[in-house]
């Protein structure tokens, strides 16, 4: 049984591209998340907004996916995930916006 993860690409009203992840990210689907993120970053002309507010679970494998892209992405997160991102040091490297 694989971990449920839904990745949706969209645009904000201002045209900024948004990657929305819903479900859970763990070691079983981190690669899937990485592929989708890389693709979205490459497709985005500037900063990519990654919306994690619908994400129920994100472990270190998921964090490892985010790190290479810190300069190109902007994270929107829920209070649930915020402490983990802070502990991982991600919040220091990139813009993390609470939802």
């Amino acid at each position: 049984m694989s971990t449920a993860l839904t990745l949706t690409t969209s645009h904000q009203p201002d045209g900024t591209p948004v990657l929305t992840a819903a479900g859970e990210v763990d070691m079983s689907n981190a690669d899937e998340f990485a592929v989708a993120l890389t693709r979205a970053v490459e497709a985005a002309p500037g900063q990519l907004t990654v919306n994690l507010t619908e994400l129920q679970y994100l472990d270190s494998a998921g964090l490892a996916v985010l790190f290479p892209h810190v300069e190109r992405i902007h994270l929107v997160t829920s209070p649930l995930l915020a402490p983990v991102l802070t502990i991982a040091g991600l919040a220091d490297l990139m813009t993390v916006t609470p939802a």
Partner: protein
Amino acid sequence: MSSAAERSSTSADVFAGDGEIGHDLGQVAWASTPLGDPSGWPQSLRTAVSILLSSRFPMWMAWGPDLTFFCNAAYRRDTLGRKYPWALGRPASEVWAEIWPDIGPRIDRVLSTGVATWDQALLLFLERSGYREESYHTFSYSPLRDDDNALVGMLCVVSEDTERVVGERRMTTLRDLGSDPSVVRTEEEMLTFAGRQLSRNGLDLPFTAIYLLDDDGSARLATAAGISAGHTAVPRTIAADDPTPVWPVAALVRGESPRVPLDGAPFVGLPTGAWSQPPAQALLVPLLQQGGTPYGFLVAGLNRYRPLDDGYRGFLELAAGHVAAGIASARSYQAQQQRAEQLAEIDRAKTAFFSNISHEFRTPLTLIMGPLEELRSRLGDTDQGVREELQVMHRNGLRLGKLVTALLDFSRIEAGRMQARYEPVDLAAVTADLASVFRSAVERAGLTFEVDCPPLPEPVYIDRGMWEKVVLNLLSNALKFTFDGAIRVRLRAEDGRAVVTVADTGIGVPAEEMPRLFERFHRIDNARSRSNEGSGIGLALVRELVGLQGGDISADSTVGEGTTFTIGLPFGSVHLPPGAVAAAEERDISATAEPFVEEALRWLPHASATSAPDEVVERRVQETTTDAPPNRAHVLVADDNADMREYLTRLLRSAGYRVEAVDDGRAALRSARVNQPDLVVSDVMMPGLDGLQLVAALRAEPRTAGMPVLLLSARAGQEASIEGLEAGADDYLVKPFAAAELLARVRTNVKLARLRNNHARWRTALVDSLQEAFFVCDDSGAVIEINTTFTDILGYGPEGLPYTAKHPWWPSLETEPEAHQQVADALTLLTGQTTGTYTIPVTHRDGHRLWVAAAFNQVQDPDTGRRVIVGTFRDVTAEHYAVQRESALAALSIRLSQADNLADALHGVLAELKGLWRATRVLAAVFDGSHTPTFATTDPHQRWDTLTDQRRQILIAVRDRPLLTTVADQTTGVGIAVEHPHGTMALWIDLGERRPVTEQDETLLALLAGHLGQGLHRVQQIDQQRETALALQRAILGPAQLPSGFAVRYAPATRPLKVGGDWYDTISLVDGQIAIVVGDCVGHGLQAATVMGQLRSACRALLLQDSSPSRTLTALDRFAAQLPGALCATVFCGVLDPTTGRLRYASAGHPPAIVTSPDGTTRMLDQGHSRPLGVRGRAERPEAEELVPPRATLMLYTDGLVERRRQPLTAGIDHVVAVIQNGRAHPIETLATDVMNQLSPPGGYDDDVAVLLYRQPGPLELEFAAERGGLAPVRSALRSWLERCGLDPTKAYNVLVAAGEACANAIEHGHRDNPGGRIHLRATATADGLHVSVTDSGRWKTPRPDVDTHRGRGLVLMRALMDAITVTPGATGTTIEMQARIP
């Protein structure tokens, strides 16, 4: 019951202690005394009276204002006399009016101070026999108190000492009379001395006078004491023809002993002696002269305060006897003085007389011996008795003949009329022949006899008859004084002479005696010899005879080594008178030899045909044990001459005495100590201990000091008899004596002794009659006196006295050091303390072990003033061993009862046996049929296969003996075969080499082994029962697998069973709910357990059918009604939804369950409560609902946990609540243990206890494959569990991430090289925290941050999100433990 009958019954009770006195007391008109009717007496009086009456010791008591008199039978007998029964119930002052001035103040003092009095030998003048009587009493007055503790009377314990005091006084006078050291004195001096001594006893002898009778029948006053010589009562003379003599002289001349009232004119103004009143009577005692009219008489004024009883009369007769003996002695001394002058003349006449008379003797002797020989040959075969008598006559005839011949020879030599006939003889052959005559006698005496007589170069001229006498005398002499070693006869030719030596290894002659050795009639005193017989002329004759042969004789001797006589005889005949030399003549040894040999044989033991000493003793034993009446006087005869001994025995026995005959002084002393004869008749001259020494030895010992001794001697003369009497002999008789005279003396002495020794005999009889052993020790611990019970118990008799420490009955220091030490300690106690008791082991003379319990007291010997110890003991061997057995059995039983199983029991028993015997070790092998036996021992390092072969063989040998038969080995120990439930058990106790195995050891072991066998079977039965019960318990107690989150405890009250009436149960229901039940049936043990099992099963079945607690209990009511014993069981039944914590419950009379929230608040689940099971009730059983909050603790329990005597149930519940609150942060198992430990009473639970604990939610346990894709469901389960734990979402998410990282790590690291392994996750909650552990079955790699950046990040996350993390790598996997605190 009428009141009169009641009264008589009551008084009968009071006086029941003694039939006769009680009856007379019952007759007293008590109502008219101040004490009133006995029914109204206080308990204290009743008690005092009953103690008084039941005592065998003389007592009287006085009670109440008038000091009303009571006494017991002993007092009546000893003291009260004619005042009985008049005295009963009268005022004491009336009863004892005559002595009231003496005793009244003493009684007053007791009653005023409450302090007891003590008077010893107090003189009191009693009027109990019709006159004022001098009496002495030792008594104590003790206070008596009534029920209110007020002094109301006194108890007198008294022993009357009159006999003793008066007796001692009289003995003193008699002793004084005999105490004059100057033996030889005139009659006048003697009488003055006697008068002075008599006057010193003014109590018994207020006045005395001694009259002597003159030849004309008139009496002459010799001395007066206590009365002036001029008084009319003691006229200077009383003429024979005086018609009104003051004293009846005529009667006294006839030997009578009249009593004279002192009431005539001559007796006015008599002196009073030591009293205030003059005597009223006088006793006149003749001063008897042996074989003649009395010397005179003694006038003795009588003590008016004592009756003239046998004792008084005997005393006066003895006093008169002393005076008479003194007169006899003085007169005989005077006679001897005169005789001495005649002696010189007599001596001169003696030689001639001897010569004549000896010659004259020979004729009648020949005429006696000739016909006697004739008679012997004619009658010897017909009658044993006749033959024996003839034998005696013959022997003594020979002896007399020998003596006469010797005397005749001597007188001939003196008179120079000895006719010798010298002939040339082969001296070697003649001497050897003579010596051979003595061979059998010498060898029978146990001596070596060496005759070394080689032929001489030429003949020697001798008179053969004379030579025979020389050799026989010397040999006889040698045998007489030689007790071991050899007698040697040697002949040599030396320096032209024949030299004959007769040498012995005997006692030798002291140097100072050597010059007189060959003197005639000289005898060496006190020489140890086979016989004291002898005339003292043997050696003198030898010298004369040798001289007549022209030879010479000399003696050479060393004391203790022997004597050698050397005779030198010249060869040839030139030295001899020519006319006397004759030619040689062939002839045999003459008849001279026979008397010498016969005589010598009589000295030797067992030589007599009829009167061997052992035979005499045997006859005595027969007499004493069979036909002798007990009061026949017992006479001990000691004489070394067998014929005399037999003669005395016959004579005395024919006169009705029991006679024991011994052959020397030592044997006499031994026998006297043991048999306590009434009289000892002893010869003065005996080898070993002579008669005088025997007397001295007897006088030196308390038990024999008073034993009368009659000495016999052939030595006449005053000197000898005085010597005997001085030594302490009671009488003296000179041989030859007439049979009638001997019998008269014996009779008198026995009678006097019985009178005199009454006191001593009474004491001896008393001591001997004690049922306890009695002994007296001196201050060194030496036993100096014992009684017969002592001998009966220990086997050591008075013949061995004194027994000095260490006494022969001490256990051996070598083999029994402990017992030896115990006795040594007891001796220290005995000699160091003034009083005490002890119990010690001792060894009987025959070697067997005894235990005795002794008590002792120090006392002062009244005669010597020395400190002695008087003790008694009794044989407590049986009690000792009984106690030992009882305590050993008890210890064994305890060991057996404490054991849970056979192995336990055996182990305990072996330890007990080891302790009991202080053994080196104890071994047990059970031969149960397997290859090697089951082995047990107290030595933890020992196994069957490490035992020595010897030990294994011993155990096998023990096994092969019959059951319960001990096998003892003196060097190693003792064993026994016991029936063990699994086969025969060989038991062996190693005692060590220095411990002998006693019979008691074996008895005890057999006893214990019997019990052990039974005990082991009982243990096995109990063991089997317990096994059964445990199986049952396992079957019925509760589920083997508890749902997670539960902890249970069960403690039954009844050992060794581990089941009881309480139970717990959990039942997983189909809808995921869990039913929980705790119940309590009435009672304990197996009975309750069976009921419990059925109820539990029923409850379980009902819950599976319908999950409503109240309906389940209702249904259970019906079930319980059918089940005996189930009535009144209490049950708490709940149904828990573990997801939500919702609990529905109902209680049938059960204590409320408790819920403790994480914050410490508690709730009692006391809703839904109703009656116990089976109890009828109209109301339906209620049901309640409760939510068990997250991380709260639910506890169900039975009342055994909280119910305590004398405490309200709520106190127990409060206690348990506190324990749960304190432990709410502990894991549930730990908490369960806390509860059981902390609630346990000091001695353990005394009721069944069941406890069930649950914490919401139960732990989460997950196991999943180590695959990347498997994490999502794990998270899902964990997420929902965390929710049930009541965590806020952030906290829950943090835990979720941390756990996720741990799982990811496990997959990444643990199973990188081994995919498909399993991972285990467990999460538990406590009130204030969570604990998550993740365990994999692989091995972690060393983290490589460069490669595994995100894994390293995972660890960082875990540490940040949780409060504590530990990683424990192991061989089989790695565990991550994580804890999170919940605020």
